[in-house]
């Protein structure tokens, strides 16, 4: 894992740990989440059985603006937006409709949006915020860790703070003192438990 500062999988079965290292890497890479994780420690004990993942997250400060995914071309009385990335197209259209009204927003094809007679300069349009990746971050991370954890571990506890994530899963009721184990894993990473 390139972007992660610390990554370790701990398991009584060495071969199992090796496989889970690979699985974690593949899943986080597929979900494009490597860039938000700073440190990650995974503990699996198939005898109990329990799966614990503790991680520290990098802060995501950037928001997505219209200018990040479209070119704004001013013309006489209208503006043509040529999209280069359609990930945030749906929220963008919704924001335009709310702000300018549906009659002024037209989308002739997948990659083009035309704003007619709007009261905003092209520079202002470019600055409109259309998405915030950190909003869905927790949801994405939980989904990714559900994929990494062995299937059938359906009793879960997920704790999020601003920059830390604790994910515990088991098929049995979680032990009462699981917090001590989680704390010791944070300590191994050189972090203070949340």
């Amino acid at each position, binding site marked *: 894992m390139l972007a992660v500062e610390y990554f370790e999988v701990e398991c009584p079965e060495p071969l199992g740990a090796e496989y889970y290292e690979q699985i974690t890497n*593949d899943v986080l890479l597929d979900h494009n989440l490597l860039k938000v994780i700073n440190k990650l420690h995974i503990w699996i004990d198939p005898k109990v059985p329990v799966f614990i993942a503790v991680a520290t997250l990098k802060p995501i400060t950037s928001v997505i603006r219209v200018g990040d995914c479209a070119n704004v071309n001013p013309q006489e009385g209208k503006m043509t937006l040529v999209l280069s990335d359609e990930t945030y197209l749906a929220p963008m259209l919704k924001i335009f409709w709310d702000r300018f009204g549906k009659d002024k927003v037209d989308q002739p094809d997948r990659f083009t949006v035309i704003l007619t007679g709007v009261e905003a300069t092209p520079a202002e349009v470019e600055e409109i915020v259309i998405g915030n990746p950190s909003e869905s971050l927790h949801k994405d991370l939980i989904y990714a860790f559900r994929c990494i954890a062995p299937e*059938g571990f*359906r009793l879960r506890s997920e704790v999020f703070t601003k920059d830390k994530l604790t994910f515990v899963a088991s*098929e049995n009721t979680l032990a009462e003192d699981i917090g001590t184990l989680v704390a010791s894993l944070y300590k191994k990473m050189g972090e203070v438990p949340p």
Partner: protein
Amino acid sequence: MTLVPVTYKGGIFQHDIVVDLIEDLGGYVVQKHVLAQEVVLQCFVPREDIELIRQISRPLFGEVTDSPLVGTEIAVVSMSLEIHHLPHPSCDIAEYVRRLGAKSNMVSLARGPGKRIAGLNDEERDVINEHDIAVYLLGNFETCIEYKMPTLRRGIEVPIVLCGGPDIETLKKIIDPPVDGYVGNVGRFMRRTKEAEELGKLDEIIAEITRVLEKKRDAIAKDPLSVAPARLMGLIKEKIPEILEVTSPTPLTVQMAGLRVKLPYDTFAEKVRKMEVEDGITLGDIAEVLPSRMRDYILVKILPFSETNTVV
């Protein structure tokens, strides 16, 4: 005359010459796929005539290759249908055995995952038992495999090939009583099998399946079947024309010692039973016609010579 399983690949132009030739030589076409301009035939042909088929199909750019799994139906038992197991590795393995001519079905368990909570219900057990072989795809931890395998194999009568994350020695050590085949270092993974090393693992699985099936073939050869399943397939096609209207990819699935007929049991079972095979011998005399647990299909289990005293 020994019939050997082969795959023929060639252009669609004049491919009926090859089909006629195979039938004239006494062989059987088990499956025929037409893919755009290409035809793939999975068939049984007499060993000594393979060269002749090669010669005749040369001007048509046909290619004849061995495929040891033709005429077998394989159950790929996946622990669940969740993202954890699909599409890799379950689909990768099911697809790979299909390339070598087998008809593979994926059997996914309702409560397969986990350790303590894993289980196998009666429907799953019966469906697996309708196949020639079951390939179990288990996870990465030996503790879990050791714990759940006795539950998952309860009542399974067909040979089992076990694939799991631990190496082959460990698998052999923890499974008691032993199963028929083991493939180690193939557990759960979340990436496509496309590198040489991963494809090598798939080849290892195929080799193990082939080895186990050869053993089963030898056992059948000691007490031969009253009729060859591939021959029965041709007869059913001829005498029960309704099968030609079934839209599933293989309306008649050939197994090693039987046949799955994809027609409703209630309507067609009697007709299948009374179908004449040869000289007044009906199918009911030499085979059991049973309802399949898979949809409402018919399962034909051919009886061995020792029970019927006839070979047709």
